[in-house]
């Protein structure tokens, strides 16, 4: 009972921060963070919460949730992001981003981290 009250209070407090996209995001962000590291995403992209070199081969993925479009043409939502991560060539045949053979679950978790990660 007490825990539920605390949860509600926290949810209210979170609401005060303005937008709260985290609520509607599916998947496990923390597992997504690990999946991003293990699929070498950080080799080309700067990603909040992941350690690595300063690189500009791919664009920085910081503040991804703020963008209106991803991959140039897709409206920015979690389904688009999962589709892009799993098969970039299906969106843009000429993209330099390779297909890394990411599973549906891994892509969902990755997108959860990217859409909720703070700087």
């Amino acid at each position, binding site marked *: 009972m007490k825990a539920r009250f605390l949860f509600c209070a926290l949810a209210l407090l979170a609401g005060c921060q303005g937008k709260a996209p985290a609520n509607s995001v599916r998947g496990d962000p923390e597992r997504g963070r690990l999946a991003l590291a293990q699929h070498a995403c950080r080799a080309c992209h700067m990603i909040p919460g992941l350690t690595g*070199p300063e*690189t500009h081969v791919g664009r920085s993925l910081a503040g991804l949730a703020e963008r209106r479009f991803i991959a140039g043409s897709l409206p920015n939502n979690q389904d688009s992001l999962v589709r892009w991560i799993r098969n970039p060539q299906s969106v843009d045949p000429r993209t330099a981003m*390779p297909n890394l053979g990411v599973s549906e679950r891994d892509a969902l978790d990755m997108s959860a981290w990217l859409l909720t990660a703070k700087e």
Partner: protein
Amino acid sequence: MPSTRNRLILKTAAATLVLAGLAAAITGFVVLRAGWYDTTATSQHLQPVYTVLELGMRYSVRNHSSEVKVPPLGAPQQVLRGAAVYSAQCAQCHGGPGFAQSKIGQSMQPVPGPLVDASARWQPRELYWITKHGIKMSGMPAWQFHLSEADLWAVVSFMGVLPALSARDYARVTAGANGPAAPATGAAR
């Protein structure tokens, strides 16, 4: 001869240093012996640690490669040979135009980066040095005993044209890679 007061200050300072050193050594030993440090490749360095290590590597490579004599680079034959070496030895960990590194390269810690920007980040003599001697504790092997001198320079030469290669160009220049002699079509720019 320092006054009694000054001698006391010096003694206190020395004793403090010795005790602090001793405490640090004991703490270090306990952390080491208890196995608290996480050596898994799923855990990352802290960013400041990573940055300092990378910086140290840069300075080391720059310093050690300063005497290297660079031969003429960029002849079509040499670039084609470099493409063959790259596709056989480098691509599995670094990937290439249109494709990522294989699973073994994806999950290394630190992760081997793409080489498309290598020639913008490093001088040819530095790329030669890194390829020849590898990078300790990074997973980058030394190729000194596995590639000839000519092949080492050929792969450096190839990294110079890599940024301009599309996935299709890359497939073309590496197509004959496994044959006895890659034909010198001069197509590799």
